[in-house]
């Protein structure tokens, strides 16, 4: 029987880890993800899991150790945030190119500067092109559900790629909310045992991981890695479908909330999507045709699917919780507009930067944005295509 409970987002991830009982967890503490290795350590100390915890001296080491453990044949994970993820930079690319299906519980926090501990997506967006699968959560329930789906996606034979399960630092990681937890045996059966075909600690079957590749091979290896990421799209769907059977909760690349007849859609990721939904409900009561497209899977980027989902609306607000300093918008803004153009969906697309370094994002902000879109479409008011919301000016 699923159990109704209340816990924080970090507790939810730690609980999922306990139910999965992975083999190895190398980790180094950093706010706001510290609680995850801390809680897993308690589970280990209490004999509730037999995970091998490796205390390391930095995140560079935690990811290195994770790659090593995974290559050796162990189901591995780590957790980090912000500067911790940045310090893993080189290893993130190695984990993906060495095709290691390890999991990373990322608690999104901004990167300096100015130095700040609060939430935005600068850390994971910086790692968006490292070859990892990235899945984002709106709340504690979703981060729990996503973590349980992580290994079945990453370890699938057509994928073999590392996976980052992201949640918003403090906003969900440290907020206590209602959650429905599944039974241990249901989770264990869903995730299954990790049985790699080839692994380093396999007597009599030697292998080499991560060999040097001259130019004659390296480009082919990258193409293969790219194919694996594309393959993960089908696998993410399959796993979500299977997960729905055991949980009753539906997942996909994104959630379309009241978008069917919507003139204006807000495309947003993470905890702010809930705030946007609340605002949409209130605007719908006033007869406004608005909706939310909550992106769950950012890597692989479901470009075609997003373009199709937006093809019937008049304008979209693309919400970036990250500045990418390209002088042209945030990462989501760039990728969504590229998706629209390639698929010949020529709608008004405005890129908003919001919620940087913990700046609050409110229902009123959502009202303002929809009002701007409406003004641009119905009155032809010129609209800044790339702008900040919630900025003092």
């Amino acid at each position, binding site marked *: 029987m699923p159990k109704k409970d209340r816990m924080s987002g970090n507790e939810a991830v730690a609980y999922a880890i306990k139910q999965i009982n992975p083999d190895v967890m190398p980790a180094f503490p950093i706010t706001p993800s510290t609680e995850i290795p801390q809680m897993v350590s308690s589970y280990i100390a209490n004999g509730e899991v037999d995970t091998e915890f490796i205390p390391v001296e930095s995140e560079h080491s935690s990811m290195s150790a994770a790659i090593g453990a995974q290559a050796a044949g162990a189901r591995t994970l780590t957790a980090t945030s912000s500067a911790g993820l940045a310090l893993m930079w080189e290893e993130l690319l190695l984990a993906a190119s060495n095709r290691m299906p390890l999991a990373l519980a990322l608690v999104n926090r901004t990167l300096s500067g100015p130095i700040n501990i609060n939430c935005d997506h600068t850390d994971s967006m910086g790692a968006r092109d490292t070859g990892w699968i990235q899945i984002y959560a709106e709340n504690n329930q979703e981060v729990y559900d996503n973590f349980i789906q992580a290994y079945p996606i990453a370890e699938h034979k057509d994928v073999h790629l590392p996976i980052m399960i992201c949640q918003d630092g403090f906003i969900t990681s440290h907020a206590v909310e209602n959650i429905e937890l599944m039974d241990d045996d249901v989770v264990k059966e869903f995730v299954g045992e990790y049985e790699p075909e080839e692994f380093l600690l396999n007597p009599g079957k030697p292998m080499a991981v991560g060999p040097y590749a001259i130019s004659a091979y390296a480009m082919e290896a990258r193409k293969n890695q790219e194919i694996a990421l594309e393959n993960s799209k089908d696998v993410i769907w399959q796993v979500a479908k299977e997960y729905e059977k055991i949980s009753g909760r539906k997942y996909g690349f994104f959630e379309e909330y009241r978008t069917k007849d919507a003139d204006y859609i807000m495309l947003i990721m993470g*905890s702010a999507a809930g*705030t946007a939904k609340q605002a949409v409900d209130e605007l719908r009561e006033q007869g406004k045709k608005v909706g939310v497209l909550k992106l769950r899977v950012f890597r692989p980027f479901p470009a075609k699917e997003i373009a199709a989902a937006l093809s019937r609306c008049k304008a979209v607000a693309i919400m970036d919780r990250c500045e990418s300093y390209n002088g042209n918008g945030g990462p989501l803004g760039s990728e969504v507009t590229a998706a629209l153009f390639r698929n010949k969906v020529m709608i008004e697309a405005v890129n908003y930067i919001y919620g940087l370094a913990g700046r609050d994002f409110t229902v009123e902000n959502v009202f303002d944005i929809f009002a701007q879109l409406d003004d641009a479409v119905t009155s032809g008011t010129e609209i800044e295509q790339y702008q900040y919301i919630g900025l003092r000016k």
Partner: protein
Amino acid sequence: MEKSLEIRWHGRGGQGAKTAALLLADVAFKTGAFVQGFPEYGPERMGAPITAYNRISKKEIRVHSNIYTPDLVVVVDETLLHSVNVTAGLKEDGAVIVNTAQSADEVRLLLHGYKGAVYTVDARTISTEALGKNFPNSPMLAAAVAVSGIMSRETFMKEMKASYSHKFAKKPEVIEGNMKALEMTFDALQDALQEVDEKIA
């Protein structure tokens, strides 16, 4: 409780305002409500002003922003009244509870003209009497429940007993003291709450 309730806590780092908010979410959850309990985080410094929040509702809670127009404000440290505008955005039909030995009328003078209900709880005295130490968060939690009426006194006391028994399994004397502090708070607020009820009636 018919509608959803938004509570803002003001305290100082180390006084347990965040813990009180999480505990309130905990007990409200046990009555079958949808809950949120979260602090506003910054660099953690003992004594610096901090804010924590609760949303409690019969419906699923999706908003993930801070609370700007609370129904109830709880001030765990009265010295904050001089530096923080604690009633900012507080609804006129809402209430503020302040931990102080002063009367509600005296405290109101510091509340920037706030017109709604003002309650005071002498949490320091209650805590010192019941526990022998100044832990203001237990009395303030009881006050938040008493004033908001999110659950009955009996239900609250039952849930808190279970919660403390779990938390302080090895220190039963603390359980008793904390329970006493909660009871004393309810008793202390009884007259003030009745007065308000009569006014409404």
